[in-house]
């Protein structure tokens, strides 16, 4: 698969899911178990993405400047800072720690 192929297949899959909600009868998805699982699905995937993105490099567990950045992000989120502030602050913290050579 080329990167363009992957991009376009991903786009098609996401569009089909959106369109499905306009086509399938609502009662297919109204079960209690289905609604719990679909509510929790983004939580599981995003939490795993945070963990993998922050604490692994090429599959190995690694603690580096990203840990400090995540701590700063969590503190700012608990203070209700907005998305752009959180992302910028995390980048600045990681870049600064690397620039002074404290962590990789």
């Amino acid at each position: 698969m080329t990167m363009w192929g992957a991009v376009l297949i991903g786009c098609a899959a996401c569009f089909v899911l959106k369109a499905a909600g306009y086509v399938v009868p609502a009662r297919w998805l109204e079960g209690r178990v289905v609604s719990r699982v679909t509510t929790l699905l983004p939580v599981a995937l995003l939490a795993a993405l945070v963990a993998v993105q922050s604490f692994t490099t090429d599959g190995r567990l690694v603690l580096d400047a990203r840990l400090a950045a995540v701590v700063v992000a969590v503190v700012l989120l608990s203070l209700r800072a907005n998305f752009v502030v959180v992302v910028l602050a995390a980048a600045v913290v990681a870049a600064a720690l690397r620039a002074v050579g404290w962590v990789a």
Partner: protein
Amino acid sequence: MTGATSDTRRREVVRQSWSVGIATGAYGISFGALAVAAGLTVWQAQALSALMFTGGSQFAFVGIVGSGGLAAAPAAIATAAMLGVRNGLYALQTSRLLAVRGHRRVAAAHLTIDESTAVSVAQAEPTLGRVGFWHTGIAVFVLWNAATLAGALVGNALGDPRRYGLDAAASAAFCALLWPRLTTPQARLTAGIAIVIALGISPSVAAGIPVLAASLAAVGVGVISARSARSARDGAGREDRPTEDAP
């Protein structure tokens, strides 16, 4: 209601829609920069914003191909699709409200995302809900795509993403997308189990698989909590309680 009040309220909804569009568009810059840092071209980043057009899935896609390259592409597609499932659930609500056919239905489907749904369902009347849906959807689409292009061009000019902390910015972006969803004990438990699964298997499986495998946390907690809610309800012989985690 007089025509004048109706116009005022309509203007308020339009203003609200465009402020949501501006706020969301702003983080399109971080998406564009992270996408090129992950190895995508400017046009591939742009294609994701124009055609995938659902932020969480886009960030996940570039995060996974960024760490695993093309070998991780199938996992990136699968994760992006799973994060896109919620748009289909939003569509169940917005389709009733919008009642559109033909090419307008295709446009409505494409614009069905967190923001357009949130603004539309927050309105007291169906007419205002429709105004909110279309204005928010179009505002986010236009500004998100413009910001992606700007971010991708800036990211390309920067060079080594780690030097500017762009890898940490990606972590923070996922934290910020996750944070508002951690409102219930089940959600926090799911997140905890997902992190343990992902980090636990990461050294022994291919890139992209840890995130996919973590979806099992949602299935496990979802099934068990639905069962225990049912047995608690049956045991106490009460009416169905409102769930605290309605989407």
